[in-house]
């Protein structure tokens, strides 16, 4: 109730408020253009190391689990781009443990907005744009190199799969960060699933063992961030024999992931006890 009345009085919906807060971040970043540019370039360059690793791996084999380098680069581009999108919007969740330790989270609890909204709208790190840029460039080059035959359906698939993949990564981020409400610092555990999840999705599902594949389909649904959409984009048979329709499962899986993330986060916030004296 209090939430609604204040919002009405202020005359600002969440979307506009988010826009304003990010706008403020853009303006403050623009004050130091050189520093911003260096940040963008370094974060992009760091991601290049992963690409070098993929290239090096394929320097030793002609194909991995039935995937050639050209196909695997599309997979890499999809995984990297959807991850970078998620990182841009929710990557600063990594700061939550520090907010809890310093007592800053208590301030957020007092304000008439949802805690998650405030955390996400608060400190967007625009340097993450470097990672996104790197992912998009690799994806475009890889798609051209793989000789994808573009049909309206495939264009639609690409347009749907990237945001859906990003939402799945973001949900994983929220769930694993929620651990911090119970344990002191969740960053390392969270990183194992988010950065580790991207590393996982970079390689064809077929290289992993049976139980890991099931985990990636049913528990931490990373298989839907890049693998299945890429199979659809390339228009090939899944070497593992999955039905072609799975390429389109992304949005449904993303929705389910968001629901789980929302429940876990709320439970976390409810059980939160301030560390403050």
């Amino acid at each position, binding site marked *: 109730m209090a939430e609604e009345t204040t919002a009405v009085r202020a005359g600002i919906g969440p979307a506009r408020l988010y826009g304003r807060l990010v706008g403020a971040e853009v303006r403050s970043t623009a004050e130091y253009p050189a520093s911003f540019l260096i940040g963008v370039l370094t974060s992009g360059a*760091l991601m290049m*190391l992963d690409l*070098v*690793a993929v290239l*090096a*791996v394929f*320097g*030793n*084999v*002609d*194909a*991995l*689990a039935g995937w050639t380098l050209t196909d695997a680069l599309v997979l890499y581009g999809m995984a990297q781009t959807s991850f970078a999108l998620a990182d841009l919007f929710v990557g600063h969740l990594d700061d939550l443990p520090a907010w809890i330790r310093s007592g800053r989270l208590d301030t957020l609890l007092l304000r008439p907005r949802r805690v998650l909204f405030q955390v996400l709208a608060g400190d967007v790190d625009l340097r993450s744009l470097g990672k996104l840029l790197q992912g998009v460039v690799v994806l475009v080059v890889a798609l051209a190199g793989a000789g994808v035959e573009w049909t309206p359906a495939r264009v639609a698939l690409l347009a749907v799969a990237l945001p859906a993949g990003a939402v799945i990564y973001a949900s994983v981020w929220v769930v694993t960060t929620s651990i911090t409400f119970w*344990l*002191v*610092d*969740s*960053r*390392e*555990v969270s*990183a*194992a*699933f988010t950065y*580790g999840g991207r*590393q*996982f999705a970079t*390689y064809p599902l077929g*290289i*992993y*063992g049976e139980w*890991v594949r099931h985990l990636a389909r049913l528990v931490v649904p990373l298989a839907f961030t890049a693998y299945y959409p890429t199979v659809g984009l390339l228009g090939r048979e899944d070497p593992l024999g999955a039905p072609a329709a799975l390429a389109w499962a992304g949005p449904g899986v993303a929705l389910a992931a968001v629901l789980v993330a929302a429940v876990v986060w709320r439970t976390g916030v409810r059980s939160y006890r301030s560390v403050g004296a």
Partner: protein
Amino acid sequence: MRTYVEVARRAFRRFATYRGATGAALFTNLVWGVLLSTVVSAVIRNRGGASIDGYDETALITQVWLAQGMLGVVNVSNRSPDLSERIRSGDVVVDLYRPVDLQGWWAAVDAGRAGFEVLVRFIPPVLVGLAFGARLPRLIDAPAVLVALALAVVVSFALRFLAAASGFWLLDARGVERALMTVWLVGAGMTLPLPLLPNGLEAVLRLLPFAATVQLVSDVWTGTARPSLPAVLGVQLAWAVALVGAGRVVQARGTRRVVVQGG
């Protein structure tokens, strides 16, 4: 000497209190171990079992798990960068008042830290790795492995000390430390075992000190040291001496600057 031993013992105890953080870090190491050893296995399987530059699957998988174990021991990610923070804040002046050598003091702290990490972050990944096809060193190689591990810690300390000491000039060493970490992860063979990289790149990386912190240890561990075991240990020793020596020179110059700044 007793002072340094006591400092190391207390550092060991101090790091032993960070249980939650250590457990979480270990968990991450294990996840990456599984991910990377899967990639390595897939590469070998798709080569029809053919080894790479004389490294068979066992040697490469062992290297991957060893690298995850060494991450914490050689402290690549520079957890608790005390010295560089003390240089930035100026607290390093207090360290200089003490009747002990600055580098020696922090080396003792690092020895205590490394000792703790060996117990909790090195041994578990190595044991878990056995289930994924990694192996233990032959008994006859065990003494050489211990020497290689110790030298790896010394080289890693010297590298981090140099990066932190850059703060005497830059005031903020964080940029240098981040750059060091990036090069280190690749150069040591932590992102991928060096034999998987193109031969030219591998040859260059093997000439740098980073390889001495993981890849060379792994070579000693798996019996793939080349051209010979003494040569590999010699390279590690040479880097340890050279980098610690460089640290002494930098310390002598840098601390003089602190005095000037402090007035």
